[in-house]
């Protein structure tokens, strides 16, 4: 037993840890207790109300009480600020000081097999938290075993690049930690990643209490770790990483570290600027290949062949496609949803049945299975938006001469979200991992970087816009509304951007307010003689 503030003159602090579930809260509390003990605190852990983990740590006349609450929404006293943050995806932990109503730190911690792009599955919450000024860490296995084949896999480099670009754009801490190795996949005790991220977690609590902490050394070390990861692996993952200089890692480390401290850094000193002429790149592999020759896919193929665009990633696969029967069901979901909402959306283009037919014909990757993967890679980089705009306007005749040319000189990224499912009740618009991939690719690709100002174009070759959008009449006008979920929040977070749906509807997002978006074809006007329309 330790004496608490009631019996001694102590400076007291109370911190809340909000988490996705109470088991993780209990585990985290015990890990923090171990760290506190190591650092000379007198520590006690107990359970309030028989189940709420409580940690009391006392040292040098200061008492820190930590309470863990999870799952977020089960508690009546969940802070509004935390509810607002988790609407964009729930991280595992949010550290909160109720007395100042401030979020101190957030941690996304996963043991899921983050193979390849799957490591970006949680990027939507990571990006959202950091862009809202919350220091955030993401801890994942460097090697993990995939249950389907028991093989060990590792994540790609988009997350460390995303984190560094977020630091550059916001000055807010964004760090990637990893644990485990090739011989010991999934093992949190191997490597320093999990240990360090929990020490950073504790450090932010100490910092808020005004106590000495070691966050700075962890931050600096982790920035270097991310840079080293990029340096060691980029040649096997990217066509080219323009301007990357292995001899400048010390300088990169110093620059990103200074950014996290709110200091100014010359942007020219920072790496990861993709905005260079394609002709100057040493592309290892850039064979165009449209698995399913939809009109836009054929245009992209031509653009790659002509050197106007390229695939940034070289390591890719089509994954395990669903059965034909399942795929037919997914397409049917789109048809049903589209038909239902088309009744309230005059002039909504019908779905492109010929595109589905093309998928049935060209998407057979193994007997009885259909792949919806359209291009050789889901991410295509254009040197100039102008070329992508022309391809969009050529592939979709109704867009000819319609799209703005104000972004023509900027670089562009085309992201192909090839998923087909259309179960709106479960938020299948930008479902996992796409909800994370979109902001990760956008941020890593320079959408927030003033030196690049990359324009994001997302293409949903199979899905109806009705997964994300509805139309209603307000004050005599048709007004678009989004179906609110983390997918649509992720979508609205990247602007300016363009989005093309299966039926040819193009949405130009100019801000995170959908009512300010431009639609091609334009939204209908309310006819005065329409019965039942509220003017």
């Amino acid at each position, binding site marked *: 037993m330790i004496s608490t503030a009631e019996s001694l003159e102590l400076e007291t602090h109370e911190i809340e840890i909000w988490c996705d*579930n109470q088991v993780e809260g*209990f585990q985290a509390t015990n890990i923090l207790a171990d760290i506190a003990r190591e650092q000379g605190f007198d520590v006690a852990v107990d359970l309030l109300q*028989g*189940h709420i983990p409580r940690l009391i740590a006392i040292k040098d006349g200061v008492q820190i009480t930590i309470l863990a609450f999870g*799952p977020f929404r*089960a508690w009546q006293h969940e802070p509004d600020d935390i509810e607002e943050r988790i609407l964009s995806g729930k991280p595992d932990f949010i550290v909160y000081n109720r007395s100042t109503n401030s979020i101190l730190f957030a941690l996304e*911690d996963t*043991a*899921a097999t983050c193979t390849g792009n799957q490591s970006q599955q949680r990027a939507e919450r990571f990006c959202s938290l950091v862009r809202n000024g919350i220091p955030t860490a993401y801890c994942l296995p460097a090697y993990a075993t995939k249950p*389907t084949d028991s093989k060990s896999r590792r994540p790609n480099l988009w997350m460390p690049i995303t984190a560094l670009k977020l630091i550059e754009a916001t000055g807010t801490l964004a760090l990637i930690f990893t644990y485990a190795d090739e011989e010991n996949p999934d093992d949190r005790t191997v490597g320093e990643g999990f240990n360090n991220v929990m020490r950073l977690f504790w450090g932010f609590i100490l910092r808020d209490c005004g106590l000495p902490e070691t966050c700075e050394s962890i931050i600096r070390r982790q920035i270097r770790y991310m840079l080293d990861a990029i340096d060691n692996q980029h040649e096997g993952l990217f066509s080219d990483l323009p301007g990357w200089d292995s001899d400048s890692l010390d300088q990169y480390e110093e620059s990103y570290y200074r950014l996290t401290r709110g200091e100014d850094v010359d942007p020219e000193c920072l790496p990861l600027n993709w905005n260079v002429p394609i002709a100057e790149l040493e592309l290892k592999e850039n064979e165009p290949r449209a698995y399913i020759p939809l009109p836009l896919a054929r245009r992209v193929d031509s653009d790659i062949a002509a050197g106007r665009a390229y695939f940034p990633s070289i390591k890719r696969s089509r994954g395990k496609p669903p059965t034909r029967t399942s795929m037919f069901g997914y397409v049917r979901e789109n048809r049903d949803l589209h038909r239902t909402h088309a009744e309230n959306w005059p002039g909504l283009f019908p779905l492109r049945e010929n595109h589905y037919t093309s998928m049935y014909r060209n998407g057979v990757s193994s007997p009885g299975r259909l792949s919806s993967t359209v291009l050789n890679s889901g991410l295509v980089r254009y040197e100039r938006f102008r070329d992508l705009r022309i391809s969009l306007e050529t592939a979709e005749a109704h867009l000819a001469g319609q799209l703005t040319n104000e972004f023509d000189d900027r670089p562009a990224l085309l992201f192909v979200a090839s998923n087909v499912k259309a179960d709106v009740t479960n938020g299948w618009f930008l479902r996992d991992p796409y909800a994370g991939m979109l902001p990760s690719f956008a941020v890593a690709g320079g959408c927030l970087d003033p030196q690049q100002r990359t324009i994001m174009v997302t293409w949903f070759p199979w899905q109806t816009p009705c997964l994300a959008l509805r139309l209603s009449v307000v004050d005599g006008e048709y007004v678009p509304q989004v179906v609110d979920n983390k997918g649509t929040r992720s979508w609205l977070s990247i602007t300016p951007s363009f989005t093309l749906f299966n039926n040819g509807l193009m949405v130009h997002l100019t801000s995170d307010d959908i009512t300010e978006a431009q639609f091609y074809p334009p939204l209908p006007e309310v006819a005065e003689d329409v019965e039942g329309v509220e003017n």
Partner: protein
Amino acid sequence: MTYDFKMVEGFGVYKWTIDFERSLDNSVLFTNVTGGEWKNIRNPRTESVLHIPRQVDKRADLIVILRQLGVILITEAKDDIKKLKGDLRTHSQVIKDLTSVFSRVQHGVWNSEESGSTIVPALLWCKGPGMRATGIQVTDLFYAFESKLKQSSYTGPEIMVGLEVIKDERQHLSTRGYVFFRETWKRKASEIANLLSEVTGNESLFWDLNLDS
């Protein structure tokens, strides 16, 4: 200060998890309240992965080894006891599948003593203001469960365990164990009941299924 919360299934699994962990060393092999750390069934004694369920596999919600008794509880959980009835058939299959996993020795991961454990089917539910779980509901559930187990070619012991979580008016959570058995398994059932009483601090309910036959 009292913190009010809405009782969900996860609280039930969590409460039993911490009660087991605080009373019995290296006891919790798996909880299904989260996808991450807990996606794999791990042996906490060796800190090794014992089994990786496939994504399509139906999972148990809580798996616990009672080392001193040589017993493994494989538990299906629901917030409301009424919801458990619909899951009995699936859970019976989960028990059958996992029984073969737990019976295999894995060098350095799962030893012969552990692999010789007796598998005991278990159900977990929550009870509290607005969440009834009467004695009749509980016993009816376990007779139905026994019936489903027999239909599923279950060959394990004639013992079943109930794990109840009780939320009181003060938002306090406590636990109580139930052990249902047939006569030949009375001794083992009694040992389990006593151990659950130690874990929960509440006397377990001990029920001979023959009383109804």
